[in-house]
């Protein structure tokens, strides 16, 4: 591939940066891997009452919107300090579309992990398969993931991949500043915010709205049509030696027993009475919703 001779020197300032920035002077390219997922275009799924079938509108798919932020951070870091961004996904052949989309935004190479044997994977098997793919991709400084997917909504696969790779990770990252041998990262834990130095290599899951993802470029899109995507199946990802494997349904620890429609939203109840009665009932409802807090911040009934 066409690799510019990226040197890690740097002039100018990062967005929201701090005074002192030491960029890698090892003359080594920054290797960034971004994990992507193809998700259904709509999350509105209904269960057919009679047959129990999931009814899903059409077959259109898109890139998991949360992954766009991870990709944008990867591309920005590449632009700031040089290196390359490789994108990885697991799924059926059609998932090539998200890799091409990432390439039309600026990603350098795409890797697709595809095999019927990967189907039916839970968190354990999905993260195992991705980690096996990453190991095969070679050295990296940083892995970026979206903070969660819109279809699975678990936010678990990113940290799970980090565990397989035995590297540190941080979740819900809002800001990344590269240094010589580490990144300075701001992570939002909801009730508190941490600013940390995290060593390389590491995995970061990127918070929503922590940047504005760029639009695909027409030229890059055209160029990406002809670019090859590396495809690996189960046999490519088998570990050396006699290690256990955790692919697909057979490598999953959990099993879906059944799916069913959620309980219907209750009908509107209108409450009338004297204002004293209404006030009492109002407070009762607040208690039922478990939203009253005492001084220590505990809810109670």
């Amino acid at each position: 591939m066409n690799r510019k001779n990226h040197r890690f020197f740097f002039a100018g300032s990062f967005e929201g940066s701090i005074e002192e920035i030491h960029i890698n002077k090892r003359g080594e390219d920054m290797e960034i891997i971004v994990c992507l997922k193809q998700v259904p275009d709509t999350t509105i799924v209904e269960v057919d009452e009679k047959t129990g079938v999931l009814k899903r509108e059409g077959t259109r798919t898109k890139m998991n919107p949360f992954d766009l932020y991870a990709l944008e951070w990867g591309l920005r870091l590449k632009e700031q300090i040089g290196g390359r961004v490789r994108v990885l996904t697991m799924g059926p052949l059609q998932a090539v579309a998200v890799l091409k989309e990432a390439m039309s935004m600026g990603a350098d190479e795409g890797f697709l992990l595809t095999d019927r044997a990967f189907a039916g994977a839970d968190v354990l098997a999905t993260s195992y398969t991705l980690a096996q793919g990453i190991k095969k991709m070679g050295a990296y400084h940083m892995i970026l993931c979206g903070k969660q997917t819109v279809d699975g909504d678990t936010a678990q696969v990113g940290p799970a991949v980090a565990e397989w790779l035995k590297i540190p990770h941080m979740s819900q990252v809002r800001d990344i500043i590269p240094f010589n041998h580490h990144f300075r990262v701001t992570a939002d834990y909801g009730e508190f915010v941490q600013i940390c130095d995290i060593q390389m290599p590491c995995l970061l899951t990127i918070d929503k709205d922590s940047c504005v993802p760029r639009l695909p470029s027409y030229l890059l899109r055209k160029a990406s049509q002809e670019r090859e995507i590396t495809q690996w199946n189960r046999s490519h990802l088998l570990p050396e030696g006699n290690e256990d494997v955790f692919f697909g349904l057979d490598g999953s620890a959990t099993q879906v027993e059944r799916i069913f429609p959620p309980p219907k939203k209750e009908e509107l109840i209108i409450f009338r009475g004297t204002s004293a009665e209404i006030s009492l009932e109002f407070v009762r409802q607040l208690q039922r919703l478990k939203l009253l807090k005492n001084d220590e911040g505990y809810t109670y009934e």
Partner: protein
Amino acid sequence: MSRIVVKKIKVDCPQFYLDSCPFQGITADAEGFLSINDRCRLCKMCLKFGPELFSFEEEGHASAFNQIQTKDIAVFLEWQHEKIHPVSWELVCKAREMGEPFQQKVIGILVGASLEKHMDELSEFPLDEVVIYDAPALQDFRIEPYSAAVTDFIRVYNPNVLLIGATPLGRSLAPRVAISCKTGLTADCTGLELLSNGALIQTRPAFGGNIMAQIKTPLGRPQMATVRPHVMNMKRVAHCSSPRIIRLPLREALQYSGINVLESKMKPPAQDISEAEIVIAVGRGVKRPEDLAMIQDLAQSLSAIVAFSRPLIEAGWAESRFQIGLSGRSIQPKLLITIGVSGAVQFSAGIQGAEYILAINSDPEAPIFNVADLGFVGDCYEIIPQVSDLLKSISKER
């Protein structure tokens, strides 16, 4: 490899079977023979619709899963910034309720630094035992030592079930522990049920909440689940004895982390209406800006944030970032209380994400009652002060 097998039988109406698959995983050829394509996720839905055509061929699971006998329920007690997170209480109560019929012990795991001052608080938890990992390296949440401590606990105790709060910290920690134990993890459960054989039935929304899924962990122990705050009931369960406190050391090698925390600070409470958990929306039913005092009073006792409908913002009662609706912000609180809001379509467009809506309005015909879950027809000037008084008397009782 486990797979779905299709019998080579010509079918008259292939579309019926194609439609039965939620993932478009079935293909039909021109002659009416069906086959499974690479979109199949082995959900086995097709077996229900064409048992004569489809069958599931199972291959043995990976042998690496932990198959040893396990018992008891463990709960991760989340400690950060000198506080034990309330979700821990909720999970302990749930664990107690699930475990009681089967005489399962409930064991808490507390990971942190200088935890001595929490001993009184811990003694009130309806727990049988609390296992404490207390080391300076555990002062701030850093993933490797935290996950090492919980994994070490599992190695020693072999619990059957491990519950973790689905807070940002819990969602970061739980998957690492699950992978290091090679076990299953179900996120954001809304229902948990323990069967007499020790199996944990985990219910959670799937596909963006439109479908519920029941999940089991037949292989791998502990059976791990995370639960979001406020999902489980918080009962002050009667539990006569204080938990036994057990301190376990975290080996030096396990205290290492590739993360160096420079700063960790609490965030100020949400000032953004789109992030708030409880929102009180005020509309034209509230007549004068001075009347906001009683609403602020209520908001304070509920830790709620006050927002407004468009007319009040236009009248200059508050900054526009506090406006709900099509031209304002969309909100997703757990609870929305509307006071004197009529509920025009433009307003309602901004509150679709609210989980539960309580509406107070003097007009029984107000459109707000069409979108609310519970409506109160009455005068807010009488109701609100009384509610505030009631809330104050409750908090005094505690």
